[in-house]
C-alpha cells in the first residue's frame, strides 16, 4: 500500500506568461502509475520533482482528467530547471495535497497578487462552471508585464479590476489599496485571497474591519508536503499548513500569530517575513 504515489507525467507544453513566469502543462501517462488521473480543486497544490535538482510545491492552475497545469516564477534551482523543460520531458509529481477554497453564493471578491494568482484563476473558472454569481476580481502585480491572465479574467466577470505598483496599467497602487477603495463602495459576502503574505495579511485586516470572512492561501517552506517534517507549521496553534492549508479561513487565521509576520526557513529557524 502506497499512501501517496508519485506519478511520472509528460510535459505537453511550456509557455512563458511574463518575464520569468512560466506555465507547464502535464499529461497523465496511463501506464506509469496506479493513479490514472485526478482532478484537483482550486487552492490545492502538487509537489513537482525535477530529478537531480529537487522537489517544490506549486499551486494547481488548471486540472482536468487528462492533464494539469501549474504556473511558476523562476527564482531558484528547481524553478530554474523547470524553465528549461521541453515538451515530451518527464516530470514526477505527487499530490494533489491540501485544502481547497470553498465555493459559496453571494457577492464574492477574489484577490490575486503576482505569481500567486493561479489558484484565483482556477477558482474563478470553477465559480463560473458551477453557476455561481459573477465575482469581483482584483488582479495586482508590480508592473503590467506581471499581470497574469488579464484576458481570461475579463471574460470571467464584468467586475474585473487591475492594479500595478508602478501604475504602468490601471489602478496605481497595490491590491490592498484597491480593495480598500472597493470596500467603501460595495458590500461583499466573502473574500478569497492568494498573493504575497504581507499583501494577504493587510487584506485580511481590512476584511476584518468590515467583518467579511476570508479564505486565504498561504505559502511556507515545505519539505515533505505530507505533515511530518514540521517545516510548514504555524504558531501558536501548531497548524500543519501542507495538510490543513494552504487555504485557511478567517477563523483559523485569527489564531495564527505568525500570519504576515514570521516563517521558518530551510533550517527551521524563525525569520521575519
Amino acid at each position, binding site marked *: 500500500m502506497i499512501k501517496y504515489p*508519485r506519478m511520472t507525467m509528460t510535459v505537453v507544453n511550456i509557455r512563458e506568461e511574463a518575464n520569468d513566469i512560466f506555465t507547464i502543462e502535464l499529461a497523465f501517462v496511463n501506464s506509469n502509475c496506479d493513479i490514472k488521473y485526478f482532478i484537483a480543486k482550486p487552492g490545492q497544490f502538487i*509537489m513537482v520533482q525535477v530529478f537531480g535538482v529537487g522537489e517544490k510545491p506549486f499551486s494547481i492552475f488548471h486540472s482536468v482528467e487528462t492533464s494539469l497545469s501549474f504556473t511558476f516564477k523562476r527564482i531558484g534551482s528547481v524553478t530554474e530547471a523547470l524553465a528549461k523543460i521541453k515538451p515530451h520531458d518527464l516530470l514526477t509529481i505527487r499530490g494533489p495535497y491540501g485544502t481547497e477554497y470553498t465555493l459559496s453564493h453571494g457577492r464574492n471578491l477574489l484577490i490575486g497578487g503576482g505569481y500567486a494568482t493561479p489558484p484565483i484563476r482556477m477558482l474563478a473558472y470553477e465559480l463560473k462552471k458551477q453557476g455561481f454569481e459573477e465575482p469581483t476580481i482584483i488582479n495586482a502585480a508590480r508592473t503590467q508585464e506581471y499581470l497574469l491572465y488579464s484576458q481570461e479574467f475579463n471574460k470571467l466577470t464584468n467586475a474585473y479590476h487591475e492594479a500595478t505598483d508602478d501604475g504602468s496599467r490601471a489602478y496605481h497602487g497595490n491590491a490592498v489599496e484597491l480593495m480598500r477603495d472597493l470596500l467603501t463602495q460595495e458590500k461583499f459576502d466573502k473574500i478569497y485571497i492568494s498573493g504575497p503574505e504581507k499583501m494577504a495579511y493587510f487584506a485580511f485586516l481590512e476584511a476584518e474591519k468590515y467583518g467579511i470572512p476570508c479564505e486565504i492561501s498561504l505559502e511556507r517552506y515545505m519539505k515533505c508536503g505530507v505533515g511530518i517534517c514540521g517545516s510548514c507549521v504555524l504558531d501558536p496553534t501548531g497548524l500543519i499548513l501542507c495538510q490543513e492549508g494552504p487555504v485557511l479561513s478567517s477563523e483559523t487565521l485569527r489564531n495564527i500569530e505568525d500570519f504576515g509576520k514570521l516563517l521558518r526557513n530551510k533550517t527551521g529557524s524563525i525569520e521575519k517575513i
Partner: protein
Amino acid sequence: MKFLGKEIASPFVLASGILGISASSMLRAVRDGAGMVTTKSLSLTPRAGHDSPIIAEFDGGLTNSVGLTNPGIYEGLEEVEKYKRETDAPIIVSIFGRHIDDFAELAKLVNQSSADFIELNLSCPNVEDEFSRPFALDIHKVGKIVASVSRVTTIPFLTKLSPNAPNIIDIAKHAEEKGSHGATLINTLGHGMVIDIYTAKPVLKNHFGGISGPAIKPLAVKIVHDAYKRLNTPIIGTGGVTTGNDAIEMLMVGATTVGVGTAVYYRGVDVFKALDNELNAFIQQSEFTHWSELIGRVHRD
C-alpha cells in the same frame, strides 16, 4: 505511570524528527494524546539538511533523507521553554554532534533548560558521507560519548541506537554501564533506496535514506525484546508502530513507552488519540487494568 521519575499520561512518545521543530507542533501531539514528545535532533549550529525530495515511500514504509535539518540548539531550546510553559508532559531533547565532544557541550546546554530528558542520537544514517560512519556502530565511541554526557548532566538521558549494528544489544548494555538512563530503540534502518523506473533515477535527492514504518517493526520488536533481557533501564520501543496492536506488541516485549514516527505520515498527528483508543479497547477486554501491566509480558513464565 512514571517514566524516569516523570508522570506520563500515555505510553506514546512523539519520535524525534517528526514535527518536532516547533513547540506548537509538539503541544499538538500532547493535546492529541501523546504522553511525551521528542524534539527534532538539534546540533550546535543550524542545518538546512538535504534538499527535497527528503522522503520516498515504498510498500511498507518510508525512506527518508531529511539530513538532520534543525535550527540549532539555541533556537531549539527556546521552543522547549515555550513548550514547558504550556504543559507538564515530559519533553526529550534529541541532540547530535559532528564530533564526540559536541555531545557533552550540547547536553550541558540542555541540562540548563527546562527539558525533562536528553536523547543522544548516535545513529542517524542520513549524514554518513559528511560525518563518516555513525557513532552508533562503534561500541567504544558510544561508550565515550555516553560517559562524557554523564559527567555534565543532572537530568536523565537516553541513548538512541541503530539497528545496523549487529551488536546493538551489547552497545545498549555498554551505554547503560557508562551512565545512560535508558535506551531508545531503534532509529531508522539504513540505507534504503527507491528508484523511479521511468527516469531510472533514485527518488530521494540524496539517493538513499533511512527506512522506517511497518517494514521495520519486527526488527524493532526483536531488538527491544533482546534489550529488555539485558538492560535494567527503561526502553522507548520505536519502529513501525502504527496501530494500538503494534504498541501492545512493543510493550509486551519490554518497551516502557512506545515511540511513534512514521505513523504520523499514515494516520495524521491525531494518530495519538487513535492509538490511545485502540490500546484502551484492548485493555478493557483483557484481564489487565492498566497498560503498564503489559510491559515485558512476553518474558513471563
